[in-house]
C-alpha cells in the first residue's frame, strides 16, 4: 500500500488527498533515531492532508455519540454482577469468580480500604451512583459483522481516526474498538487467525477460547489485588484478548481503542495478553471520552503474560477527558496493569498520559524468570487541575533480571504530578540490575512535581541506579530558539518534546507523532 494513514485522535482524520498537506509540517515532531528526514522520505514519498488545523484550545474528542443505550440500573450489587454476567452469556465459573471478587470488594469497601497513599485528592466516589453496564442497544451480543453495527458508532470511530471498515482500515494495525461496555468490532481478525493469533474482544474469548481465559485470568492481577482491581474483576464488561502462539511474531500492531460515551457510566475493561514461548507482539491502546461536567470512573485491569523467551510491548496513549479548565468533570482513571515475565522474556510498558482528571496507575512487571527484562517509559502531563500519581513496580524475582525506568513528568497550570515507583529486589534475585531516571519539568509556579521512589533491596548482589532531577524550561533555551524565529509557544513545545524524546522514541512511529501533538494541545494555555 502506497499510503500510510496516520491515526489521529484529534477529532480530525487524515484522508487520502495527496499534495495538500506538506509532510514537512510534521518535521519538528520526528522521532526516528537516525537522521530524522531520511527513513521517512525513503519509505513514504506521499503527502497527507487533514481536514482542519490541529491547534485548538479545547478538548477535541469531547463530542457525544447519539445512540440508544441499554443501561443496567445504577448501583452495584450481586444482582448487577449476575446481570452483567448473564448479558454476556458467561459460563458459571466466570460468574463465580466475579462474585468472589464482588464479595471481596464489599469487604474492602467496608474496611474503607480505598487506597489513600497516593498524592491525589478527589471527592469520594459514590459507587452506587454509577452505571456498571452501558451498551449500545442491540449490542449485547457482539456484532457478527460491521453491517450489524450502528452507523453512528462507526462514524464515531471514524471521527476519532479509527476507521473500522476493512477498505479504510489502518495499514499495519488491527483494531479492537470498545464503546462503553462492549467491543464494537475487531478488524483483521481473520488475517491474524491464519497465523494462529487470537485477537478479539474479551467476551468473544470467553466464548471461543474459554480454556485460555480460564488458565490465565487473574493470575497476574488476582481479584484480591487492590480495591480497584477487585471492583474491576466483579463488573468488567469487555476488553481485548490477545494470544500469540509459540514462536509467532505478530506482524502488525494490535490496537484497542476505548471510548466512554454514556454519561454517568463507569468503564471497567479487562485486557489479557498472552505471548506464548518465543512469541512477540506490540500492542497499542488509546482512549478518549466526551466532554462532561460530571466525573466518570474508569477502573481497568490489564494482565500480560510473557512466557519463556517471548516479548510484549505495550504502548498507551491515554487521553481521557481531563475535565474543564476549572477542574470540573473529567475521568477518574484508576488502572491496574501488570505483566509477568518468565525466563528470558521481556515486557515493555510505554505510556503517554495526557488525559484524565485523576490518573492512578502503575504498570508493573514481575520479573519471575531468570534473565527476564522489564521496562517502563512514561511521559505524564498534568495541566489545569489534573492530578497524576503514576509510576511502576519492578519486582525482581529471577536471577540476572534487569529493569529500566524512564519517567518524565510535566506539570503545568495547577496540575500535580507524582512519580511513584517501586523497585523490589527479592532475596533470590542474584545480580539484578535496575536503572531508574525520573525527571520533572515545571511550567509555571502554581503546579507541583513530586518523586517518590521505593527502593527495596533484599539481595546484596543487586546493582541499582536511581537518578532524579527537577527543572523548568530555561529562559536561555527559550531565547535561543526564539532568536532563530520560533514563537514562544513553538519554542516551549520543541523544548518539551525534546525533553520527552527518550520516551517517545519507544513508541511506534505514528504514535510518537500523535503523542507530540497531544502534548502540544494539552499544554495550550499553559505556555506563551
Amino acid at each position, binding site marked *: 500500500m502506497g499510503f500510510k494513514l496516520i491515526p489521529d485522535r484529534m477529532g480530525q482524520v487524515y484522508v487520502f488527498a495527496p499534495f495538500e498537506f506538506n509532510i514537512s509540517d510534521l*518535521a519538528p515532531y520526528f522521532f526516528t533515531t537516525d537522521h530524522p*528526514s531520511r527513513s521517512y522520505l525513503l519509505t513514504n514519498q506521499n503527502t497527507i492532508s487533514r481536514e482542519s488545523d490541529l491547534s485548538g484550545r479545547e478538548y477535541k474528542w469531547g463530542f457525544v455519540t447519539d445512540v440508544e443505550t441499554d443501561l443496567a440500573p445504577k448501583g452495584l450489587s450481586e444482582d448487577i454482577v449476575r446481570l452483567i454476567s448473564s448479558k454476556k452469556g458467561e459460563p458459571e465459573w466466570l460468574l463465580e469468580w466475579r462474585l468472589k471478587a464482588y464479595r471481596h470488594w464489599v469487604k474492602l469497601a467496608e474496611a474503607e480500604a480505598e487506597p489513600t497513599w497516593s498524592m491525589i485528592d478527589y471527592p469520594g466516589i459514590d459507587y452506587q451512583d454509577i452505571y456498571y453496564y452501558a451498551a449500545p442497544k442491540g449490542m449485547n451480543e457482539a456484532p457478527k459483522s460491521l453491517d450489524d453495527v450502528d452507523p453512528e458508532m462507526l462514524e464515531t470511530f471514524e471521527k476519532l481516526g479509527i476507521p473500522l471498515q476493512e477498505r479504510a482500515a489502518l495499514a499495519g494495525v488491527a483494531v479492537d474498538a470498545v464503546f462503553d461496555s462492549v467491543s464494537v468490532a475487531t478488524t483483521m481478525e481473520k488475517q491474524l487467525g491464519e497465523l494462529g493469533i487470537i485477537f478479539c474482544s474479551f467476551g468473544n474469548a470467553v466464548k471461543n477460547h474459554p480454556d485460555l481465559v480460564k488458565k490465565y485470568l487473574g493470575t497476574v492481577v488476582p481479584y484480591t489485588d487492590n480495591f480497584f482491581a477487585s471492583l474491576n474483576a466483579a463488573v468488567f464488561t469487555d476488553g481485548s484478548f490477545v494470544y500469540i502462539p509459540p514462536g509467532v511474531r505478530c506482524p502488525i500492531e494490535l490496537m484497542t481503542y476505548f471510548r466512554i460515551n454514556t454519561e454517568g457510566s463507569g468503564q471497567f475493561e479487562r485486557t489479557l495478553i498472552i505471548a506464548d514461548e518465543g512469541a512477540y507482539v506490540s500492542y497499542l491502546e488509546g482512549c478518549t471520552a466526551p466532554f462532561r461536567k460530571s466525573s466518570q470512573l474508569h477502573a481497568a485491569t490489564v494482565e500480560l503474560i510473557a512466557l519463556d523467551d517471548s516479548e510484549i510491548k505495550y504502548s498507551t496513549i491515554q487521553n481521557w477527558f481531563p475535565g474543564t479548565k476549572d477542574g470540573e468533570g473529567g475521568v477518574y482513571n484508576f488502572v491496574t496493569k501488570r505483566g509477568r515475565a518468565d525466563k528470558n522474556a521481556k515486557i515493555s510498558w510505554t505510556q503517554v498520559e495526557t488525559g484524565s482528571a485523576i490518573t492512578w496507575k502503575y504498570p508493573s512487571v514481575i520479573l519471575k524468570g531468570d534473565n527476564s527484562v522489564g521496562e517502563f517509559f512514561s511521559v505524564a502531563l498534568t495541566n489545569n487541575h489534573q492530578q497524576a500519581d503514576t509510576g511502576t513496580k519492578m519486582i525482581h524475582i529471577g536471577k540476572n533480571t534487569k529493569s529500566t525506568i524512564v519517567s518524565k513528568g510535566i506539570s503545568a497550570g495547577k496540575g500535580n504530578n507524582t512519580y511513584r515507583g517501586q523497585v523490589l529486589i527479592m532475596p533470590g534475585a542474584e545480580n539484578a540490575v535496575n536503572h531508574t531516571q525520573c525527571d520533572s519539568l515545571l511550567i509555571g509556579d502554581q503546579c507541583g512535581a513530586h518523586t517518590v521512589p521505593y527502593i527495596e533491596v533484599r539481595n546484596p548482589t543487586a546493582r541499582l541506579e536511581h537518578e532524579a532531577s527537577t527543572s523548568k524550561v530555561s529562559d536561555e533555551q527559550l531565547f535561543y*530558539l526564539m*532568536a*532563530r*524565529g520560533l514563537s*514562544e509557544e513553538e519554542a516551549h513545545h*520543541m523544548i518539551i518534546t525534546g525533553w*520527552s524524546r527518550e520516551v517517545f522514541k519507544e513508541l511506534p512511529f505514528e504514535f510518537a507523532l500523535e503523542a507530540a501533538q497531544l502534548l502540544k494541545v494539552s499544554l495550550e494555555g499553559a505556555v506563551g
Partner: protein
Amino acid sequence: MLEIKNLHASVLDIDDSEILKGIDLKVGKGEVHAIMGPNGSGKSTLANVLMGRFDYVVTEGDVLIDGNSILKLRPDQRAHLGMFLAFQYPAEIPGVRPWQFLKAALDSKADANGEDKMSVRNFSKLFDEKIEAVGINPNLVKRSLNEGFSGGEKKRNEMLQLEVLQPSLAILDETDSGLDVDALRIVAEGVNSMRSPERSFVVVTHYQRLLNYITPDVVHILVKGKIVKTGGPELALEVEKDGYKQYMAEAEVNA
C-alpha cells in the same frame, strides 16, 4: 539597515545596573562592522539587546531596522526580519535535533513572511550541503542540539545555522572565543563567503585575531557602555598593539 540611537540598557529587575550608556551606531547594507572592547564593556550585552534577550531592559533610545523600531518585537519577530545572533554560549536543548530545529526555524520564518515552506527533500539537501561547507562532523547533528558539544563544535553549529538561515543582518557575539586557528578560519571563511551587498554583519570581539581573517569596513571601540572611538580596520591593529588602556582612561575622563 541597522541604526542604533542613544541606546541605554540595564539588567532587568536590578537597580543601577545600566550597562549600555548611550550607543549610537549605523550599519549600512553590505557593511561589516566590528565592535571591540575589553571585558565588561557591554559588547555582549549590546549583541543580546539587539536580539531582544529577556534579561535586559532598554531604558532609553531606539534600535531601527530599515527605519522601523524593533524594540517592541519579540526575538522570533526580529529573526523573521532577517536578524541573526550567533551566540557566545548557545543553549543546550536535550532531545532536539539540529535538523529538526533548523527546519522549524525556517518554517516559522516562511510562515511569518507569507512564503512557502521548503519541502523536506529540499531542506535535507540544503542541510547536507551546509554541513559540508561548515565542516561540521555529520555525527554531531544527529545528537541533541548543543548537548555535549565542545566549545568549538557549538560555534561551528552556530555557523551552520547562519548558513542555513541566510539572515540579512548577522551579529556574531564573540564567535571567535574558544576556537582554534582552524575553526577560526572556518568561521571567517563562512562569513566572508556570505558577505554580499545585501547582508550586513556586526562582529563583536575582544581580540583582533578574528579580524585578521574578516576585514571589517568599520571598527568601533566600546568601553564602559559607550563607543569611544570609531575608525577603519587599522583601529583593530592599534588595539592589538596597545590594548584598551588608553580608551579606558578616556572613558574614565568622559564619565
